[in-house]
């Protein structure tokens, strides 16, 4: 097995294979990693219902197996649940994987003992928005939902009676439903930065729906897959060129969609930038939730942004925001959680991305894609022809 190899794999256990997303490979791999001692703990999402789940850190393979199945509706980044030095594995959307790598750069996570099992992701949906969408647009009772998937540009809900209800995602998103805005313009769908990238794109023919397409990215990726094979938990077969091509094509299509959304949400500001930003941030109540939830922030409760800014300051903008901008411009991965938690509904992600884009372009730096030191932490930039 080598870095760069692609396979289609599935769980040997029928139950996991059926309950799991596209053949349960990820669940089986994570459980086997725990069972065989490759890791001491696994982070998974424990389902509370069709729309909600809560992250848990578990050493119990049964809990891992119970968490099988994919969900589009939980936008949370799992890097905060990792402890330095613990051998741990986690399933990771590209944003989870990037955040984990950023945390590793800040010494909050030991990248050598963390197995990042990447998952393809076309986007997640906010539970509350999803419920509303089901009621108003699909005209369905949210409690009747049994499953959900995105296929060929359509968001398909399966109700308990076995019926499928599909609506084009574009239409939904025009109305303000569908995926989160930051997911809409995210162009990183395949987790190339994770140890191993898993998903259902590129699985065709008989195996469609029953197998996971896997690409190995690192040595750890080889380890965790091989471990699952050796444990008899997983079977693989090499992926064919057709599958690889299809996968690349879907990725390409998603990236086009993202580019269009980019133009929509991050269109150049007309008129005064300062007015735009002052208005956008005017409602801030200094709750600090955006900081608490940011996956690339390593600071605990004590942080420069909070300690030296105060609600009592009578400034036109908040020092809290300005300090966070400068500290994070190079590292914002656009995961969107800040917008999710803001109690006054400020579209923070768009704002941070507006600052981040020019910076990341100038330094030719993309956060979370590898272990390159963030430019803000750099010491010697001037060799680049200053």
């Amino acid at each position: 097995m080598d870095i760069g190899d692609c396979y289609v794999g599935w769980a040997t256990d029928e139950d996991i294979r059926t309950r799991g997303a596209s053949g349960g490979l990820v669940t089986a791999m994570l459980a086997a990693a725990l069972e065989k001692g490759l890791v001491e703990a696994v982070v998974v999402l424990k389902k509370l219902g069709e729309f909600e789940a809560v992250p848990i850190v578990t050493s119990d393979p049964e809990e891992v197996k119970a968490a099988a199945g994919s969900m589009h509706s939980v936008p949370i980044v799992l890097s905060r649940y990792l402890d330095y030095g613990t051998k741990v594995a986690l399933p990771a959307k590209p944003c989870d994987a990037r955040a984990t790598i950023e945390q590793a750069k800040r010494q909050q996570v030991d990248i050598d003992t963390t197995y990042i099992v990447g998952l393809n992701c076309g986007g997640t949906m906010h539970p509350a928005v999803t419920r509303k969408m089901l009621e108003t647009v699909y005209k369905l009772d949210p409690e009747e939902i049994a499953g959900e998937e995105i296929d060929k540009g359509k968001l398909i809900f399966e109700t308990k009676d076995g019926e499928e209800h599909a609506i084009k995602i574009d239409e939904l998103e025009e109305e303000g439903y569908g995926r989160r805005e930051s997911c809409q313009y995210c162009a990183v769908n395949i987790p190339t930065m994770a140890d191993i990238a898993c998903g259902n794109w590129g699985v065709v023919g008989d195996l469609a729906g029953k197998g996971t397409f896997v690409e190995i990215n690192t040595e750890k990726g080889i380890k965790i897959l091989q471990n699952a094979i050796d444990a008899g938990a997983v079977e693989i077969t090499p992926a064919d060129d057709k599958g690889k091509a299809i996968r690349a094509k879907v990725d390409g299509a998603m990236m086009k969609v993202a580019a269009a959304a980019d133009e929509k949400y991050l269109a150049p500001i007309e008129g005064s930038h300062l007015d735009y930003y002052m208005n956008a941030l005017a409602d801030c109540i200094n709750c600090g939730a955006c900081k608490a939830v940011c996956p690339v922030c390593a600071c605990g409760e004590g942080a420069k942004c909070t300690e030296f800014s105060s609600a009592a300051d009578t400034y036109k903008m908040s020092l809290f925001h300005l300090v966070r901008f400068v500290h994070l411009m190079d590292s914002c991965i656009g995961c969107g959680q800040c917008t999710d938690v803001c109690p006054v509904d400020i579209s923070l992600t768009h704002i941070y991305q507006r600052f981040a884009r020019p910076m990341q372009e100038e330094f030719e730096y993309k956060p979370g894609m590898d272990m390159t030191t963030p430019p803000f932490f750099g010491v010697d930039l001037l060799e680049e022809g200053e």
Partner: protein
Amino acid sequence: MAEHDLYHLKKLITTPLYENYNLVNERRTIMESEEPRIGVFVCECGVNIGGYLDTQAVADYALTLPNVVHTKVNKFTCADSGQAEIQAGIKEHNLNRVVVASCTPRTHEPTFRACCKEAGVNPYQFEFVNIRDQCSWIHMWDWEGATAKAKDLVRMGVARSRLLEPLEESSVPVDQNVLVIGAGVAGMQAAIDFGDMGYNVYLVEKEPSIGGRMARFDKVFPTNDCSICILGPKMVEVARNKNINIMSYSEVTDVDGFVGNFEVTVLHKPRYLDTDICTGCGACQEVCPVELPSEFNENFGIRKAIYIPFPQAVPMRAVLDKDNCIGCKACEKACEAGAIRYDQEPIYEKLKVGVITVAVGMDAFDPLPHNNYGYGLYDNVITTMEFERLLNAAGPTGGHVVRPSDAVEPITVGFINCVGSRDVNENIYCSGGVCCMFSIKNAQLLKEKRPETNHYIFYMDIRSTMRGFEEAYNRARDLGVKFIRGKPVEITEKENGNIIVRVEDTLKGEIANVELDLLVLGTGLVPNEGISEMGSILKLPRSADGFLTELHPKLAPVDTTTDGVFVAGCAAGPRDIAYATAHGSATAGRATRLLSVGSAPIMGITARIDEDKCVVCGVCVDKCPYGVFEIVGTNGDRRINVVEALCKGCGTCVTACPTGALEQSHFKNDQVLAQVRNVFQYGGE
């Protein structure tokens, strides 16, 4: 001079090393737990401040600020009377913070800190507001503007002073060994002085012999003493001094640590012979078949692949240039003592020392790259060093100055001064009056040796500043040396090798074309590789001219910005032998303050960490150029370890730290922000 005055003078020049900052003052302890009680003292500085802004208005304004309980305007705050006012104010009003608004901390911060300390206020709870150099002197015709600015600055200073904390200075022990890098005349003098005082000295020299440049000169101005004759005994003195370890043909490759505790790595380059056995007889160099240009003789004349550096070398040992050795082993056969060792390897040695003197010297300006004045293009244009070696009786021509083109002794010789110096195309600085004097000396020496010669010196200015120099200049003129004030513009060569110098004689107002048999360039002094190397190893900054920077050009000419490291000789700028020798002794004096006391103070403005806030992100580790931080421990026990003694107090780690766990004492985030937040006020308040 009264003891009292001497005391204040001492405070002005340096911070005393061993005063016990830990003096516990009962009254001060009580004060610390109270509200800030600030006294603001506004200085008139005669008319320097008082003549350009309203000092009383500034003082009155200060009194309106929260926590300011006392203000006073003084004519001269630094004078005894002014300082007495501060101390009286402290006592009368129970002050625990003192703000002085006057000149610049760069002159009087130590003065006022000491004054406060005497009266029981921690010297770090004193704040200096600059309203002269940065206010009254630059807004001399804007009374209102300057006064308004002074008020702002005082308000900023008061805000900062509220947050200043009492700081103690700690100290580290000083190892009693000394490192002197470079064994030219400055380094040798330093080593002799250290050795005579009883300290163990490691004298590291990268050439195979000590002596430096002075060993290559013929005679030295203004006395025209034979250079090696006066240097030789000094070299022998170095060799005989029991406390000096000469490490010749060696280089310092690394220095770690801090004042009093330096860890030095020295590379001993292989000579390929056993120096304990080699007698320096020179038999090896007789038989060696390889001939190479002799660096000692400025590439006039030859040396062999195995060679004795020069007749007076110390240590008197041969050295084998393996790069050019053809492996014939003739030297091994010829060596009666059996000293040759072809398989020698370089050896790295680690030394522990307490203080370091850097005396790595300089180079002469090389006119070859730009062919200045035809050097490198015309045969009969030579440099001063080449002339010295020709003139020297032990040189390649036995003391006969001859023309390179035809080996004929010249009759008419010209010297151009300021070659490579005072030149916007090369170096703008003056080489310290060295080149003026050596050209005068050389013209005079050749004239005395061969009275039939004629000499011209083309100069811009004659800088005969030191003792005996003007007399030497007069002697040269009396001998008939012609001085033409003008910078030659064109040098041409005739078929017979003669050099024509075209120059404006500015005193006569005439253009002259002077035909010479030989032209000697008075090349200036330039920084050498050793300066860059030691600069980076020891983290010593260089000035715009490329030489090492001293701590203060007037008041601290041999100290550097790195504690425990001193600089002597031409490494700190072009100068002559007397100055360099004096410098060498000066560093011994300055360094011995640390050695004899046995401890060195670590200043109080170092980095401190709040482990509760620290998330061990590790950003500080890479940012610190002194290696103060490292991550220690494993997994959940990880923490940042801070080696305070290495901290120089720059504060870049504090900027890097995202949480604010790292703070720099005396420049804490809230202290600086207090100044930022008091630049502006709401109108009408």
